[in-house]
């Protein structure tokens, strides 16, 4: 009987597995699979990559996108881009302090009550580029650049999707009429059938996005000498965004390994006890 149930369970599992792709919206292109350093049960963030990714974020993306759930101190947290074992309390990490001090944040002068600007500290959140949603839309042709803090978890495909989106821009196929302020991207979900004058059976994949292609070769200059190709920048910033969305990922996988070893041993012991207890009982 157990065997029969296992077969049913396996069939059910398969059915559920095939159900998953249907959850993706529209019919955009499947994201390209990237061999991330943090993939797999033993994967880790590549610290140099996170540092480069932060640079791309700061110099390019942060002009339009907020990441308001992050504080500067997070950059120095364990497994973070600027973690240094010498500074277990990331608030004291001099590198983090220096990064924070490059920003001005508004604050209240406690003597006069006036709003003043002061340099940010490691405890401050990343400042947002726009004061509110209307300002963000007004500067972006009506489109709203989403907050990037958890974006890598908020899209099917995660970092693969972000990487594919950033590298996926190309000329709109002939027959597609799009608003000149928008851009064709085969990985962006959408429905292009109304803008398509070609064969209705072959509507192009993807959609039109309000974000102009943000990256190009040499958009940034890396401090570690890595060649700043479009592909490299896209990978680095996607890895950084994955870290931003799930900063505890490495800690989680490491703990999972110990927990599994423990549970396997415990199951073995319990099974042996079970056999011992039942050895004289027919059942």
């Amino acid at each position, binding site marked *: *009987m157990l065997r029969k149930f296992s077969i*049913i369970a396996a069939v059910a599992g398969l059915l559920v597995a095939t159900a998953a792709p249907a959850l993706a919206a*529209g019919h955009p292109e499947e994201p390209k699979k990237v061999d991330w350093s943090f993939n797999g049960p033993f994967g880790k963030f590549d610290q140099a990559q996170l540092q480069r990714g932060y640079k791309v974020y700061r110099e390019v993306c942060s002009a339009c996108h907020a990441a308001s759930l992050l504080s500067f101190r997070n950059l120095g947290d364990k497994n973070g881009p600027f973690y240094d074992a010498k500074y277990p309390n990331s608030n004291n990490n001099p590198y983090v302090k220096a990064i924070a001090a490059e920003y001005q944040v508004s604050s209240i002068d406690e003597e006069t009550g006036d709003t003043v600007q002061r340099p940010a500290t490691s405890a401050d959140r990343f400042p947002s580029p726009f004061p509110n949603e209307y300002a963000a839309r007004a500067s972006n042709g009506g489109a709203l650049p989403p907050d990037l803090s958890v974006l890598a978890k908020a899209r099917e495909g995660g970092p693969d999707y972000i990487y594919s989106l950033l590298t996926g821009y190309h000329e709109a196929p002939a027959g597609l009429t799009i608003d000149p302020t928008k851009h064709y991207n085969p990985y962006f979900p959408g429905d292009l059938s109304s803008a398509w004058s070609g064969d209705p059976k072959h509507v192009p994949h993807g959609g039109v996005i309000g974000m102009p292609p943000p990256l190009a070769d040499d958009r940034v200059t890396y401090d570690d000498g890595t060649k700043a190709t479009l592909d490299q920048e896209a990978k680095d910033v996607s890895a950084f965004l994955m870290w931003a969305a799930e900063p505890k990922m490495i800690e989680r996988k490491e703990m999972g390994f110990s927990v599994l070893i423990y549970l396997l041993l415990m199951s073995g012991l*319990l099974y042996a006890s079970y056999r011992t*207890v039942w050895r004289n009982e*027919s059942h």
Partner: protein
Amino acid sequence: MSGHPSTYEPKTAFTRWLDSRLPIVRLGYDSFVDYPTPRNLNYWWTFGAILSLCLGVQIATGVVLAMHYTANAGLAFNSVEHIMRDVQYGWLIRYIHANGASMFFIAVYIHMFRGLYYGSYKAPREILWILGCVIYLLMMATAFMGYVLPWGQMSFHGAVVITNLFGALPIVGQAITTWLWGGFAVDNPTLNRFFSLHYLLPFMIAGVVILHIWALHVAGQNNPTGVEPKSKADTVPFTPYATIKDGFAVSVFLILFAIFVFYMPNALGHADNYIPADPLVTPAHIVPEWYFLPFYAILRAVPDKLMGVLAMFGAIACLFALPWLDTSKVRSMRYRPTAKLYFLIFVVACCILGLCGAKLPDDPVIPGLKTFTLIDSDLNSFVWLSRIAALYYFGFFLVILPILGLVEKTLPVPDSIAKPALSHPAHAPAEATASPETKG
């Protein structure tokens, strides 16, 4: 609660003193140590222990989450992210709680299919079964409201879809939805009451679980043969025999649980729920959590909204009526070959309904194939697949089980649990040498 004569003898002066004032140790001893358990229980009987663990885990992690969570429409999303980022091991507690809900449902579904297969709902266990159905209903309500708490896009729009179902009821519908919402839309008051109820219901579940176990211990456990224990030879004491087997099963279950929590914590969730709720932006597909998908499919299978809602609730009502729908005198389907076949199809139908619930109704089941349109959709579509499966779901309860019990040929049932091999030719040679795990 133990339903059998007590054999507990207090050994120390203190336990004697306590026993004549509050015989709580006696209760525990009679219920979980000396309690006679059928000796032939297989691993499908370990899910009761697994479910108790799940409830304990949800309450323990939930209470800690509630210390850091803020039930306010403007703050809820970020407070969950605060738990994930700033609270010590908050990510662990939240992932255990979120995946724990799924584990709870995996266990409860197996537990229910077990009861269905071995006829555990038949006399004298009708109340026991109905209490189980009440727990299941409360679990669904709890999980639904819990999913609303992080106030992501799926939380919000899922809440809108589900609460709107009540609007389909004639005359009172609109009033009920307004009452549920605490306003004229899903908003802050809705979130607040859902949080309050999400905190309350698990304790109500715990109460019904106590009744469930009480009823279990009065009627006694069913077993794979469906034959009641007749003598001491048929049973073993709960401790150590059942406790150790349950302990092993729980440990194996925890391995599965840990794999989800530590290596794929978001696999059972939906990416859209990491987008803060926005009433003005509706997600392309609103899908409930996987454990609601079969009911969601039944809801959408019916073209009329009110009828769909009634069908969905009817699907659960069938479970409550089951003890009186099945007319067979033979309890376990082990001895009902025809019923066994219909049962297996039933399990497949439930899985198919789950699949349909996750798909767009009009999408083709076999890609690229166009057949002909029937009523509102092509025959090769998930809505039609769900109609067929839903028909089988209701047919199983309302037609097959009532009629089959009267007409089917059953196999000879063993005289007692201890000697099934002698009276059960179909199993005799294999059973004698089979290892305990493959039995059942």
